[in-house]
């Protein structure tokens, strides 16, 4: 294991975050606060309690998940797309470093950033609504697992994208709709039965549901299934990344 290299890439990526601290932290915090103001206070007042918690508090896990997903994906996408685009990737590819180490360091850094951001948003949320976290360890488990899984997805998209349009395509057309339809702002039990069934094909539902369970102890789908699905996504993305590196897909001609 080339720890020096893993550390070098990880630090490099984290340094990039520090340089852009303002837009990478402030922007999500502001947008989340806006959600609370609009949904929690303005509209939320008219919405009855959901599963025994106020609407403002109910949407907190979903909002955090929403940020976690989009941040994980975009962090990792940019982290690998830019070196590829600017061709500085040559250095990483020519270094005595394994595929696993490359992925671990980039995905690790992307996930770290996303998790840090989620915790900041959680703290911001605590200023607006009363929060309770029934299973803090499980909450961290879902946080870390989701961050890793979707950072991996971002990494895959970053390798796949060969222009700036594609870079935006998947987050815009797939990830955003999935997160909004994934029960971030509602319980899927509120949906008509047919849409509820459709929702079960949305992977984000399982993550939001499991994550919300770790807060309030109630879930849309059984927690075991949530965990199983989260692990399944992780396994699928790992398999894709392994295939990409083995074949040199868009990295090594």
């Amino acid at each position, binding site marked *: 294991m*080339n720890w*020096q*290299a893993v*550390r*070098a*890439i990880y*630090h*490099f990526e984290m*340094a*990039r975050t520090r*340089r852009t601290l303002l837009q990478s932290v402030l922007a999500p915090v502001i947008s989340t606060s806006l959600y609370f103001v609009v949904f929690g206070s303005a509209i939320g007042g008219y919405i009855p309690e959901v599963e025994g918690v106020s609407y403002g508090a109910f949407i907190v896990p979903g909002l955090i998940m929403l940020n976690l997903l989009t941040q994980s994906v975009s962090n990792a996408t940019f982290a690998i797309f830019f070196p590829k685009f*600017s*061709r*500085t990737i*040559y*250095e*990483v*590819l*020519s*270094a*005595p*470093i*394994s595929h696993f180490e490359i992925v671990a360091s980039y995905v690790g850094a992307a996930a770290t950033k996303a998790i840090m951001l989620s915790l900041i948003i959680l703290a911001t949320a605590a200023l607006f609504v009363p929060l309770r976290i029934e299973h803090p360890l499980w909450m961290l488990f879902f946080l870390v697992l989701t961050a890793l899984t979707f950072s991996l997805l971002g990494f895959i998209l970053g390798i796949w994208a060969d222009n700036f349009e594609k870079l935006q395509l998947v987050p815009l057309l797939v990830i955003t709709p999935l997160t909004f339809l994934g029960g971030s702002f509602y319980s899927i039990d509120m949906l008509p039965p047919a849409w509820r069934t459709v929702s079960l094909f949305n992977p984000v539902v399982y993550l939001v549901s499991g994550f919300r369970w770790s807060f309030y102890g109630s879930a849309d789908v059984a927690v075991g299934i949530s965990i199983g699905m989260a692990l399944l996504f992780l396994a699928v993305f790992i398999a894709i990344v392994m295939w990409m590196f083995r074949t*040199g897909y868009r990295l*090594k*001609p």
Partner: protein
Amino acid sequence: MSDRPAMQPIISIAGLSKIYAGGFAALKGVDLDIRRGEIFALLGPNGAGKTTLISIVCGLVNPTAGRVTVGGHDIIRDYRAARAMIGLVPQELTTDAFESVWNTVSFSRGLFGKPSNPAYIEEVLKALSLWGKKNARLVSLSGGMKRRVLIAKALSHEPQILFLDEPTAGVDVELRHDMWQLVRRLRDTGVTVILTTHYIEEAEEMADRVGVISKGELILVEDKEALMRKFGGKRLTLQLAAPLAQIPPALARYGLVLGKGGSELVYHYEGEGGGQDTAIADLLQDLGRAGIGFADLHTEQRSLEEIFVGLVSEREQNQTGEQG
């Protein structure tokens, strides 16, 4: 160093081929051994396969067939050991924009698995006249400075082999000479240097051995001195006192050529050991007898460039000949 018996080549390339996905054959069965501690120049026109060859050795391109070992380590099976020995300076100026010089060079060292060593990085930056710019962001540097940064990155992990892919393309004279000095210093410390270039001047100036690659095939590998002797030849140019309309028949056996409207006489002859040691003396005597006076004369070695162009075009003619 050079008298060590039966020295293993530091890089051994055997039967190396690369066919890109589009079907383009960039390398066609290249065999090449690089000796430890030498400066090897890989010469060839654009698109000849120089960069592909380097990229395969460094792990940037997957070979289609063949085998490469670096320091005895297979570049695929034992890639860590192989790559740790190599520093690569790519052809393009590819740098991160917002990093500082110091950070990017330190990053490279870490990437190659070496524990941080600020004293060594300082040494490298000073040797490349980058020390004053150590905190500058890369985006603010000139092209020449970026080139120096890329070299510093390649040297940051104390490699035993340095690849320079077109190191002086678009570089000013000063930097070019700095770079040549640096390469010689590196060679003195035992580093093997492989450079690709289509500036023949560079190979002529620095290389111990020269390989000529054309259309994916290595058409020649030779000691530079031997190459110059073998293909070099010399040229004697006489500035005549009075222009000549034609070469007198008495001088026909020399194969002289009149140039510059008859005011210049050019004589081609073999260099040392060519069996024509007295040829110039004979020629000058015959000129005197023919009453041809000259104001000045100089001799010059045929340059590597002429040899190279000759080799490549000769080969191309042969190939079209075979096809036709």
